[in-house]
């Protein structure tokens, strides 16, 4: 099928089919298009191989300072002749002519002699005869008639005279300029004919279907939401039920219930956000309170205080949500998980945020083991597309044994620490009446998102830069 041409392209081709070798300026004049439209059209046509553009170079000659003077006052020899014509007997002493012509005297004498316009006899110059116009003067006038005073070398036929003028210092300047001419190709000629027929036969004007279209952006969910959703789907697919809990929690559920003593460094204000002057009204059941306090007093040997347990904090982990569910509902068998924002009083940096998302899953069951926990972790990673993972021992205050998992990141080419896990300590479960072992595992989601999107700075996830949000592919 024939190509569809833009109206600009059509106009250019219809001119070129009549006359070849036109410059863009010529085309602009003949098509009544602006020079910019013509240039754009030529680019399109050239790309489609419908025209051929020749880049050429042209030499020009301009009048120099003395050339301009000569145009105004005449060549030196003409000035001499005019002078001689103006005085009696058409002759004078050499010295007189010299006074009159000054610097032009020598070339005037030389050229007038060569033209046989004068004779010199005993220091006297005598006019013999003269021509009305010389070929050199014709060239000067021709150049001078142009605006600007510049002529193409092609326009000057009398090369002999030009050479003579060239020899006169500062009469002529030579320059060159690049320019292009456009020729229609055979394919272009065909296209020009076909287009005529298409546009005349069809009611709907054809458009350039190959041209670039303007950019539009798809509305999307946030990339971090996509990772959170993916993590959630995996937990659900592994048989976990989702819990939702509050961000503001009493210290009791965030710390005490997890056997973190009240003087533990993690509970200090420089690590945990305390809500100013805010205490929980009701914290837990009296039984839960008394048994947890006893566990602290005997395990950590200090004076456990109710007022410290009541202090409201922004949760430092989602474990407070899962432990409360387990304490309140006493599940014997369960798979539960929670995803949400957690808070740490940190200096914000490329590594740390004060607020980030964490996921935590727990498995309660009579016969659950550390190997099961490792297996669930491996399966979670497998479903996230992470192939290699390994386990190292670590320490968490509320789990024993405790492990951390490392995953191999292909892009970074190294092992990266990811989720932590462990089995809740008996000092945590027993006071809350939880009978069966509880496996717990989880970690930060931003870390996974950074690996997924190849980010080196965690803050980029919350910058809300539209340039990034608009360009990051939905699926990768």
């Amino acid at each position: 099928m024939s190509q569809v041409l833009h109206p600009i392209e059509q106009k250019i081709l219809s001119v070129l089919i009549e006359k070849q070798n036109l410059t863009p300026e010529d085309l602009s004049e003949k098509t009544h298009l602006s020079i910019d439209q013509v240039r754009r059209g030529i680019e399109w046509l050239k790309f489609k191989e419908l025209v051929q553009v020749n880049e050429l170079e042209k030499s020009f000659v301009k009048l120099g300072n003395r050339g301009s003077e000569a145009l105004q006052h005449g060549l030196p020899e003409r000035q001499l002749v005019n002078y001689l014509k103006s005085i009696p007997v058409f002759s004078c002493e050499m010295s007189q002519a010299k006074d009159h012509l000054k610097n032009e005297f020598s070339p005037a004498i030389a050229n007038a002699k060569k033209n046989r316009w004068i004779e010199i006899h005993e220091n006297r110059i005598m006019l013999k005869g003269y021509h009305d116009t010389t070929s050199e003067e014709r060239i000067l006038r021709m150049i001078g008639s142009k605006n600007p005073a510049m002529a193409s070398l092609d326009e000057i036929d009398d090369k002999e005279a030009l050479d003579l003028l060239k020899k006169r210092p500062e009469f002529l300047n030579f320059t060159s300029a690049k320019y292009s001419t456009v020729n229609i190709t055979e394919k272009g000629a065909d296209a020009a004919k076909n287009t005529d027929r298409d546009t005349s036969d069809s009611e709907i004007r054809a458009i350039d279907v190959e041209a670039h279209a303007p950019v539009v952006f798809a509305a999307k969910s946030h990339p971090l939401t996509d990772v959170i959703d993916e993590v959630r789907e995996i937990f659900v697919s592994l048989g976990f039920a989702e819990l939702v809990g509050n961000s503001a929690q009493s210290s009791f559920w965030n710390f005490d219930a997890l056997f973190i003593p009240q003087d533990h460094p993690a509970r200090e204000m420089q690590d945990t956000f305390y809500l100013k002057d805010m205490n929980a009204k009701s914290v837990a059941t009296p039984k839960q309170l008394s048994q947890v306090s006893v566990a602290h007093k005997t395990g950590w040997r200090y004076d456990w205080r109710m007022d410290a347990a009541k202090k409201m904090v922004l949760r430092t982990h989602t474990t407070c949500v899962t432990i409360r569910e387990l304490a309140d509902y006493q599940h014997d068998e369960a798979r539960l998980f929670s995803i949400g924002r957690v808070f740490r009083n940190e200096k914000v940096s490329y590594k740390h945020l004060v607020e980030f998302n964490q996921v935590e899953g727990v498995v309660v069951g009579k016969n659950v083991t550390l190997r099961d926990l490792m297996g669930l972790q491996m399966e979670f990673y497998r479903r996230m597309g992470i192939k290699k993972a390994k386990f190292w021992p670590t320490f968490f205050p509320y789990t024993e044994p405790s492990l951390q998992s490392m995953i191999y990141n292909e892009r970074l080419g190294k092992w990266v620490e990811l989720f932590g896990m462990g089995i809740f300590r008996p000092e945590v479960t027993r006071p809350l009446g939880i009978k069966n072992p509880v496996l717990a595992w989880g970690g930060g989601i931003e870390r996974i998102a950074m690996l997924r999107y190849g980010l080196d700075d965690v803050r980029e996830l919350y910058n809300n830069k539209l340039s990034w949000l608009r360009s990051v592919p939905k699926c990768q």
Partner: protein
Amino acid sequence: MPVVTLYFERLTKLLGRKISKEKITSTLPFLGLDIEEQTLDHVNVEYSPNRPDFSTDYGVATGLQGLLEIKLDMPQLKIKKGTDTIRADLSVGKIRPYIVAIKAMGGKMDDETIRQIITMQEDLHNGIGRRRKKVSIGIHDLAKIKFPLVYKAVERTHRFVPLTSNTEMTISEILENTETGIAYSHLLEASKKVPVIVDSTGNTISFPPIINSKLTEVTSKSKDLLVEVTALDKTAAEDALAVVAYTLQTVGFKLYSVRISGSRNSTVSLESRKMLLDPSLVNDTLGLSVSPAVMVKSLRKNRLDARIKGKQILCLIPRYRTDIFGPIDLVEEVALGYGIQNLEPTLPPAKSAGQKNRVTVSLEAARNTMIGLGYSEVMNFGLVGKQIQYDLTKREPSGIISVSDSKSQEHQILRNSLLPGLVDTLSRNIHESYPQKIFETGTVFYRDNPINEEIHLACTSAHNDVSYTEIKSVLQSLLKSGFDIACTTKISQDPIFVEGRTADILVDGKKIGIIGELASGVLDNFKMRIPVAGFEIKLTGLIFDQT
């Protein structure tokens, strides 16, 4: 997490066997030590504060010897009976009641050893010592001390030359003018008098928990040491002393007890603890079925003594292992000795189907509807700054919920509205092409009893022809096509919006949100020239119930 520096050359000497760097660095993580940085001659590792014995290369070497099977079993602590005494005076009873001490004789310390011991001391102060509040440690050159010593409370006019000075200072001057005095003076705020340790010639050797005396400064020339630990809790004091004592013995010192007298105080023995471990707890917890003999070997590799006693395993735990509370901690010791890498992961089958929370399901529907309407999701923090939340939006601050001691101006208060964050997002994207249509769902906070958390949805549209009508269409469509909810709007006021183009959003006569065109003054505050319209609605109670 605290960090300890391990030089391979020193480590090789301490291990007593030539072990390759690769073997060492690949074994360290299985002691629970995270490699932070590795160079040609050393490696920096992070250790958990519950293992203060890993605060020196001596302690790490002891652990490595076990896992590498160079030495098994518990390191024996040998303390000979000493005759020197410290008397704890009644006057310290209400300030810092406990003191324990030990003498370490005939050792040699190079600069690196001294550096390791000082780091250990600091890590003990921060961990077990709870930043010196609970426990503080003083290590002294024994040659400068004349026994018997007295631990007593003195007035703040008491004078001596502190470690960091060359001139005598009063207690008050030390607390006000020295670096450690300023850092820890709050620990002594409760009492007028302060505790000091004075020797028989009247020299003050220590001012716990602040600073030692210049007189007893430890140098590489010191051969005999006195270690004293003062504390609010006697067991914690012994914990700290045990870690120091084991380390100094490994350095090569011979240990002698120091007799302590005085009310509530007594001489310490730092004896090992006995604990019984049921092999079935090990197998049930780890998911193994190994014999008690394997468990015993694993425990011995973790530098514990263990032997089979009937159906149980009897363990002997050295006094410095303060992290072992009960049998479950011994289970982890078995796992480490057995090798975490030798535990084969198993995937237990799920017994029930998983499910998303109904809040999540409803939120997903709201988000998808907004995306269908052409709005892109953004994410802001819940803990925000006052400036954006109130000052720039011209909203009246009331019932603000703040956090204490935030390290950042931008994270001081809990947001009570999402709109300010969205406008801020727009203002940071003025160089991007328009229209800009964005939304956010997230938690907002109100003072209640004591606090109420709600999930909101807010959206803004920014372009040259934006109007109240456009954004109201979006609101209606979100509620109608998302949740089959009809809403009405009633003229209202909010400083963030233009007067006359602001309305309350009502569902069944109840206000669920606010809608309008942004006030030009607010846009000026955010340095924006493009007009913006938006709304914010409360989803909690509308599309799902309170959690």
